[in-house]
């Protein structure tokens, strides 16, 4: 099974979800993310879904669960890059990403984390 790379940039973990994520892979990825958080002690996580062609109920739930789990461990997550057609489909499917920080793209996601104090540079 392919592995999804999780990059570390300063205090932020960055994960770009790939297109063909099947259920088993998604669940393993969830475990990988939590392990990476634990080992890196990153304060923030950005999940970029701009390369994802579909968020169905399973992937939606996995994302939402992962964010909650990461928060339980002390790491804030921002979801970025939700494409218009994905937003439409999620809405009609009834998927809600309540309580999840969302930004338009990677830059804005990182800016959001910085404003929230999730990422600290120098004085704080």
């Amino acid at each position, binding site marked *: 099974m392919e592995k999804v790379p999780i990059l570390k940039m300063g205090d932020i973990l960055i994960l770009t979800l790939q297109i063909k994520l099947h259920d088993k*892979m998604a669940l393993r990825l969830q475990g990988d993310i939590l392990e990476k958080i634990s080992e890196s002690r990153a304060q923030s996580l950005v999940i970029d879904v701009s390369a994802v062609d579909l968020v169905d109920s*399973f992937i939606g739930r996995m994302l939402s669960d992962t964010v909650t789990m990461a928060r339980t461990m002390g790491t804030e997550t921002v979801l970025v890059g939700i494409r218009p*057609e994905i937003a439409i489909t999620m809405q009609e499917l009834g998927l809600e990403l309540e309580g999840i920080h969302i930004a338009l793209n990677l830059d804005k996601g990182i800016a959001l984390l910085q404003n929230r104090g999730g990422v600290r540079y120098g004085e704080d």
Partner: protein
Amino acid sequence: MEKIKEANMNSNSEDVVAARQLARKMAEELGFGLADQTRITAAVSELSRNIYLYAGKGRVVIKAISQSTKKGIEVVAEDKGPGIPDIDLAMQDGYSTSNSLGQGLPGTKRLMDEFEIKSQVGAGTTVTIRKWLT
């Protein structure tokens, strides 16, 4: 253009991905826009996942259809699994017996133009969905 595509579900979560890729390809070939392609793909993902989760095995048949002047896509997802004892309940938002959030069936119905479900306990379930090109 191939008018019928079929995905066999064989107790593997990768089959769900294969079924939805067939659906997207067919939707694209038929001329559906990106939003409708994604709706159709999501609907097929939900139906094929239901087969994977509840029945294990089954098949998803994706067809180009036409009715007088309109053209569309039809997907039939069928299995010989345990069947659904209470369809009304299964069609309610938030109901699920597999802890998967339960958006599956009502969500699929909202994504498509037409939705029909037949199920018999112990015999299996067949869901037929259609979307028309507008």
